């Protein structure tokens, strides 16, 4: 994708080594259930120094630290929500790839359903109005128009 360009750009500006993505074998937890939860959580968390990458995808040192942190919290017995809360408390909303609904993100979350419903409403209203218009009997021709029509028909040479 053009993401490649972007990556290239980021790389030009920062680290010289483009290396392998994400989760390293030594980071992984022994407990497969916990590890799976850690992976799911990692996909929702942003690597803050990267270009729109989750910590699950990124190989930046910060992403590594965050992955380890997430796993530490999970091993300490936190629920998924608690881990997210912990990270938000520490790093702010910026860390969440799916922003929480708040007054600040109302437009973001509201626009897609709003647009869909608004569009539907417009269509329904339009259809109703059109149907109303069709049902209206077509007004008869005015006497002037009648006369003109007769004249046109009379003038035409016929088939």
């Amino acid at each position, binding site marked *: *994708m*053009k*993401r*490649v*360009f*972007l*990556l*290239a*750009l*980021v*790389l*030009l*500006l920062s680290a*010289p*080594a*483009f*290396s*392998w*993505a*994400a*989760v*390293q*074998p*030594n980071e*992984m937890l022994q407990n497969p259930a916990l590890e799976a939860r850690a992976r799911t959580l990692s*996909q*929702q968390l*942003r690597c803050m120094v990267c*270009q*729109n*990458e*989750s910590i699950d*995808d990124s190989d930046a040192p910060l992403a590594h630290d965050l992955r380890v942190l997430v796993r530490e919290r999970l091993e300490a017995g936190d629920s998924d929500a608690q881990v997210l809360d912990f990270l938000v408390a520490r790093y*702010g*909303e*910026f*860390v*969440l*790839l*799916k*922003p929480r609904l708040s007054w*600040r*993100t109302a*437009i*973001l979350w509201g*626009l*897609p359903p709003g*647009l*869909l419903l608004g*569009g*539907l409403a417009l*269509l329904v209203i339009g*259809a109703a109005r*059109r149907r109303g218009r*069709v049902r209206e009997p077509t007004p008869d021709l005015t006497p002037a128009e009648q006369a003109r029509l007769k004249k046109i028909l009379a003038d035409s040479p016929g088939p």
Partner: protein
Amino acid sequence: MIAELGHYALMLALGLALIQGTMPIVGTRTNDPVLMSIAAPTALAQFAFVAMAFTALAICYVISDFSVENVYQNSNSQMPLIYRLTSIWGNHEGSMMLWVSILTFFGALVAVFGNNLPVVLKAHALAVQAWIAAAFHLFILMTSNPFVRIPQAPFEGQDLNPILQDPGLAFHPPLLYLGYVGFSIAFSFAIAALLEGRIDAAWARWVRPWVLGAWMCLTVGIAGGSYWAYYTLGWGGFWFWDPVENASLMPWLAGTALLHSAVVMEKRGALKIWTILLAILTFSLSLIGTFLVRSGVLTSVHTFANDPMRGVFILAILVVFIGGALALYGWRAPLLKQGGLFAPISREGALVFNNLFLTTACASVFIGTLYPLALEALTGAKISVGAPFFNATFGPLFIPLMVVMPFGPLMGWKRGDLLGAAQRLLVAAILAAFAMAAAFALEQGGPVLAPFGAGVAVFVMAGAVTDIAERTLVLRLPFRAAWQRAIGLPRSAWGTAFAHFGLGVTLLGIVAATAWGSERIAEMKVGDNLDIAHYRVTFAGLFGRQGPNYHDVVGRFIVHRMNGDLIGVMEPSRRSFPTRNMTTTEAALMTRGVSQLYLSLGDPMQNGNVAVRLYFKPQVLLIWLGAALMFAGGALSLSDRRLRVGAPQPAKAKAALRPAG
């Protein structure tokens, strides 16, 4: 000398664009056919000069003229010829040159093939095309000149970024730009119609082939980029909802909507005003995409502010063209006559449904991409909008669209028979239910929604087949008669079926690869086995290999089936480029049917072990195969063009009237 020639040619192209943008307009106002007819030859000349400039740049790259700064920064004499050529557009300045080359190429095509266009429409459309071209010529000349020299020429160039040294670079950007820029034709025609204050079904007939062509290029451009990212980035993802990807997806969504609404307009004369708006929006989104990628605003609002000249310039282009077009639309659109009544349950109704969902999906991608930027610029608050947001908004919008899709082609124009269509889709629905049940039964702990997605995909595919079966009556007539009907079917009907089928195929690939793939991450020493799906991968050792301008450390892995049959060897590598002191990951892919094994290497460790990531991606190739089918559908529909444009042509009609002999 060559660089200077190129520079000069570009300046002349700007001059020609200015003439092409003004004289024909004056002609339409004074009703002067000579001034109006200036448009076509200037469009051709403009293209010739831009092509000359582009060729000049290409020559600089081929002969490795490092006294040209652009070549010095992005090329290297050691690189193979193909990468020296593709690196022309592997950087900002060069890619803008490609942009204007394609733009003027399309202008020239309109000039050549637009002989049976109404004179005024043609003059207006080419003039608008020239305004766009002039703006971008000016942009290149003032802020992104690729022909700038370095006073003392360096001995060797700085190499193209290794990630871009890939065949993908040869296809992906040109195809994407053909798509982006191709929509400029629809835009120019829309503005021309507004300027003229007149629009009819013929307009749609004229614009549709261009939209179709652009859409085809964009489809394979996006798909190609996705495949490139898939094998390059080393973890097998194919879509990341990255802003740069979204920038290409938005015009695709709007363009798809435009394609469908133009059908309604062409066949039924309805949705005229909406189609005009979509034509404007589609190209506007292409411009926004260019802005997002080219201004650096995405990296951060701050880099944008650090080097503001380019960003501000493109922003000005955006404001002038999008703002101007929408203002003109607001002013003139009420003058255009609406036409063509239809019942809500009809082919038109289905296409309106399509448009509603596609534009909403497009809007949700738009807001998700731009909201963080806007919020940061306005309030300073930083939020992230990533894949989870788009999955949560885009998915629910696209699934109903796919469910309704098979109904559309089965419904009649004006007033459709929903029940009849549903009856004809019964077999497709049964197949879908069967697929869903099978997926449920076979699935081992995948996401709950995945079988549903697979069911929808099968429904779409079977629906497309049903459409063709119904049209050819293949099950009711003897085979020969059905075959005759199949040949006689309009190509556009085949096109629709192919494209819809392709979308189903893509969806199936996406569902299968994301929900049912498996992944193994491990540290391996020589002789170790790693099992995935029904394959066993054995690490056989590391060795070195020298390439033209890089060095590979290759891992050798032997792949067996679980029962011990040898299948083959996978050789992923870590590739280091000494010029830039960079290392890339070259994943190894092994195709099994339409599924793939995907293996990539991590940094070798001190103890001689390697970290590997091994994936099994079931049905992953369907994603891109589907895109190829969509392209084929577009091509079939495009080949129908003769039939659609075959309305009586004035020249022929006159010739027929002339007395023979």
